[in-house]
């Protein structure tokens, strides 16, 4: 039945629009609440720990793995043109501009975004969020703000770590295995880069941090219906924020590079 199909399509569109609207409202409330008293320093420190410090091992490991694999592929690829020297330049370009921020973003979406969704989701279905409301505490202020701030600070820092580790991952492979000179690698790595590129990487990381925290918290906050709802919240938060990270990465790259 065409009308039926149209009906369903319309419903889906309306539903997505409502959700997008809800997300926008909640996000703007979160940003507005960031400047409101009382500032909850212990909670913020706790989030710095949970989002930032505890993620360092994961970020280091993935960055090592990705940068080494990438170096393998590059040295193989450029050998076809007898241009092995270019490998380190492209390595630098790829790590700083794309790999470090995007890998950090995706890993963190899985590691902390999902945790935020699960935590807030549990709080929602066990009425703890209602209890916050009753104790005259805005859940957006109490729960969203520390997570948002922590992600906004920590994602760029972790991206910095990822770039640093990526440099040494490439070094280990190109210098250690392929046998480039270490001085050449170290200078070539930066050859195609300008300071602006580091700025771009950190800007991307900041945007990814905002996406991860807001989507994770929002999905958790809007959890409905018991254990199943709590189970769905992290999954959909990871999917949604990963998608938005990739989409925004494209536009940020386009915008910031012109």
């Amino acid at each position, binding site marked *: 039945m065409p009308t039926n199909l149209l009906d369903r399509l319309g419903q889906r569109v309306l539903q997505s629009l409502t959700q997008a609207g809800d997300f926008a409202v909640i996000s703007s409330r979160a940003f507005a609440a960031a400047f409101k008293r*009382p500032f909850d320093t212990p909670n913020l420190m706790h989030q710095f720990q949970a989002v930032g410090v505890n993620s360092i091992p994961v970020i280091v490991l993935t960055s090592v793995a990705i940068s080494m694999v990438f170096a393998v592929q590059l040295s193989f690829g450029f050998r076809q043109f007898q241009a092995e020297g270019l490998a380190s330049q492209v390595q630098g370009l790829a790590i700083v501009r794309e790999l470090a921020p995007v890998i950090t973003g995706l890993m963190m979406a899985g590691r902390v975004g999902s945790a935020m969704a699960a935590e807030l989701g549990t*709080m929602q279905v*066990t*009425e*703890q969020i*209602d*209890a*916050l*409301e*009753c*104790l*005259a*505490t*805005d859940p957006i202020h109490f729960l969203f703000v520390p997570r948002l701030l922590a992600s906004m600070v920590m994602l760029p820092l972790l991206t910095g770590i990822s770039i640093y580790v990526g440099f040494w991952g490439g070094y280990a492979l190109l210098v250690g295995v392929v046998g480039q000179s270490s001085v050449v690698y170290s200078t070539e790595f930066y050859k195609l880069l300008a300071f602006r590129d580091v700025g771009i990487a950190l800007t991307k990381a900041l945007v990814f941090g905002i996406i991860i925290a807001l989507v994770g918290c929002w999905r958790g906050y809007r959890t409905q219906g018991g254990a199943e709802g709590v189970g769905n919240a992290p999954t959909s938060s990871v999917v949604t924020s990963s998608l938005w990270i990739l989409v925004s990465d494209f536009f940020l790259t386009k915008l910031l590079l012109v």
Partner: protein
Amino acid sequence: MEPVIDVVNLSKAFGPKVVLANVTFAVQEGESLAVMGGSGSGKTVLLRTIMGLLAPDSGHVSIEGKIIQELDRQELFEVRKKIGMCFQMAALFDSMSVAENIGFALKRHTPMTEAEIAGRVDECLTLVGLKDCQKLRPAELSGGMKRRVGFARAIALKPQILLFDEPTTGLDPVMTDVISRVILDLKHQLGVTTVTITHDLKSAFEIADRIALLFRGEIIACQPPEEFKANPDPVIQQFLRGDAEGPFLTDPAPPKRSTKSSASPLLVP
């Protein structure tokens, strides 16, 4: 005199299921109202609507003259600071210790020092008989202990209005009496206005100035305990007797057997 809590023509339905239909009542300052009703009759929904956690389909609630449904969030929080609410499932913050749970509002809304907060937390915990539990996490408490911590959290800020959702369900008879006494104490000492949902007839008659019965979405009686007891309405009489037989249930009650004859012959020695 203007009532402290004024519920006007409140209606609420979830999908096709009508939970509240034109509920109207008022609670005066210093008065204690007990709300009773069958399980699933909408008592919790009523309390959540009063608190502004649920939006009614029609009608409104006003607290001290302010219509809850028309306030913006900031004003709503100002009103909620004057209200203490005790949840049916306690709803304790499970990432915090018992002491942090109880001191939560004190820390956020009062200029009290850490020591003063600790003192007040001790005081509240002693009231509900949980003196040595400050350090425990909610996961380490029994159901009844959680409920008492929830109760202590609700009264910590010394609010002028208290809403209790079954504060005594699941407690032993002695503890139930203790909680009833604390509620009475608060009323006499601080003149607080309370709405208490309870299934416990004894404590309802003890604490209430008026008892309301919620039945099929309506308040069918709201009167002082003696009048409530004498109310000839068959629903009320059945509720007071605690009998399955009568107009209270929609479906006929399961057949009644006398306890002695129902014993299985196999068990008879």
